[in-house]
């Protein structure tokens, strides 16, 4: 059979000027934040701006190393970067508000409510801080639970006492509050270190335990997670942002919420799969009783939240909003 004749091409609209951006996250393609975070965001942005923006996504290290990704975005070497407050927190402490707090929001819907819900809007504080630094907070996704795993059992917070676990940034604040001993090492060495016994366990986002194969080296997964909604942020250089036309900025801001929901849902699936993989490989999932969770919350209130408040005046203000949300939802 003859192929049908190709339809005549539609008259080409006037070629719009294409803006090209360079995007290098502070993590590599092996992280779930790549395929379920930055990639869908880029697709949505390119679609919303009708092909007037083309984004080149580069692996970590293509332009700079991870601690330099945010400074390089501020300087305009990169147009965009993505990461967590745990790796850029030294440059933007308010990022911790966007990242998430111990024992507060348990789902991405709840987390959205604290940062951008009509009544709370802690996100405004983060955006103000960003603008002061010369960046604009432009994308977001929740990666779900960030929890801990180990070769011991945790039924009450005291069980962490004396345990050596990999924990960075806010994780280490939490672990120290529980009496454990945070250890910092290159993430590539964590697996081996648990296997050989240098570490008793580690903190990590649940969805990422699959890729890191932690289920091969730990016996137990601990719940509830110390952080119920860990979030990853995308920032754009402020000049790059301001150079856009108003309709383009509106289009990108317009997908902020829908893309957050979409990417966070993708991550939720990963969390479920990771828990299943762990169980299939003989790991036990240990959940604290309600009474013990309440005792742990007291500890968090006393030792963990104040640390965030101390990071900056805006962080302090942001924690007030978090607390208001907790009270409104009967969690305090």
């Amino acid at each position: 059979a003859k192929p049908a004749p190709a339809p005549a091409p539609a008259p080409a609209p006037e070629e719009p000027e294409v803006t090209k951006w360079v995007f290098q996250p502070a993590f590599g393609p092996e992280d779930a934040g790549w395929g379920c975070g930055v990639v869908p965001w880029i697709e949505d942005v390119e679609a919303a701006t009708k092909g007037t923006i083309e984004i080149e996504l580069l692996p970590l290290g293509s332009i700079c190393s991870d601690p330099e990704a945010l400074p390089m975005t501020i300087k305009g070497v990169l147009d965009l970067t993505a990461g967590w407050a745990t790796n850029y927190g030294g440059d933007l402490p308010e990022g911790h508000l966007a990242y998430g707090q111990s024992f507060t929001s348990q789902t991405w819907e709840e987390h959205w409510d604290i940062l951008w819900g009509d009544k709370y809007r802690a996100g405004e504080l983060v955006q103000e801080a960003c603008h002061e630094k010369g960046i604009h907070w432009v994308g977001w996704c929740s990666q779900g639970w960030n929890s801990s795993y180990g070769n011991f059992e945790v039924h009450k917070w005291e069980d962490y006492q004396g345990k050596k676990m990999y924990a960075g940034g806010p994780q280490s604040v939490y672990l120290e509050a529980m009496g454990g001993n945070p250890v910092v090492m290159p993430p590539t060495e964590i697996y081996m270190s648990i296997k050989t016994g240098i570490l008793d366990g580690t903190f990590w986002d649940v969805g990422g335990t699959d890729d890191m194969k932690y289920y091969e080296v730990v016996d137990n997964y601990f719940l509830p997670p110390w952080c119920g909604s860990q979030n990853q942020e995308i920032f754009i250089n402020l000049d790059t942002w301001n150079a856009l036309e108003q309709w383009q900025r509106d289009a990108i801001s317009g997908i902020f919420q829908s893309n957050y929901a979409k990417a966070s849902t993708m991550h939720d699936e990963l969390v479920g799969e990771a828990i299943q993989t762990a169980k299939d490989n003989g790991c036990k999932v240990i959940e604290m009783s309600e009474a013990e969770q309440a005792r742990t919350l007291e500890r968090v209130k006393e030792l963990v939240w104040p640390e965030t408040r101390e990071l900056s005046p805006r962080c302090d203000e942001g924690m007030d909003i978090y607390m208001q949300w907790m009270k409104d939802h009967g969690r305090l």
Partner: protein
Amino acid sequence: MKVWNKLGQAVDLANEWMGRLAWALILFLMCFGVYDVIRRYIFNAPTVWGYVVLKMGLVALAAIGGGYALKRGSFVRVDILYARWSRRGKAIADIATFAFVALFCVIGIWYGIDMAHFAITTGQVTANVEQFPMGPVKSLIPLGIFLVLLVVVKTFVSDIRVVFHRRENKSLISHK
């Protein structure tokens, strides 16, 4: 000429001192690494800041050791042809490439100052809990590249002397 010789000696001396600092830094890193393990393994008291100290030490080592290593002729080069040339031939090759190295150093210093200035004025700190300031160690970077530039310029001047005063062939920089 005398002024140049004096300046040359000053460059050597500055780098020699930086070299001594680098020796001390290496011994410090060795002892600190051992101490950190003992703390964790024997006393079960690991630090979350120990690794930051080690990493900052490595940045400092790269910065302050550059001029020293270059002065001692330790920067490896592909001397397929280079090794066969006379002192004068080598001098001519060095002169030809001088602009490239100088450009590399000047750009490095320029943006190094910019980076250090940024770190100091914005109060940049490490992302860990202790929040060490980044300003001091980042300031070492333009300084270190500047010391390398001094060695490069010094070699350039002596190369010119070698080329134009054929009798003088005292090597002012040793080549490995």
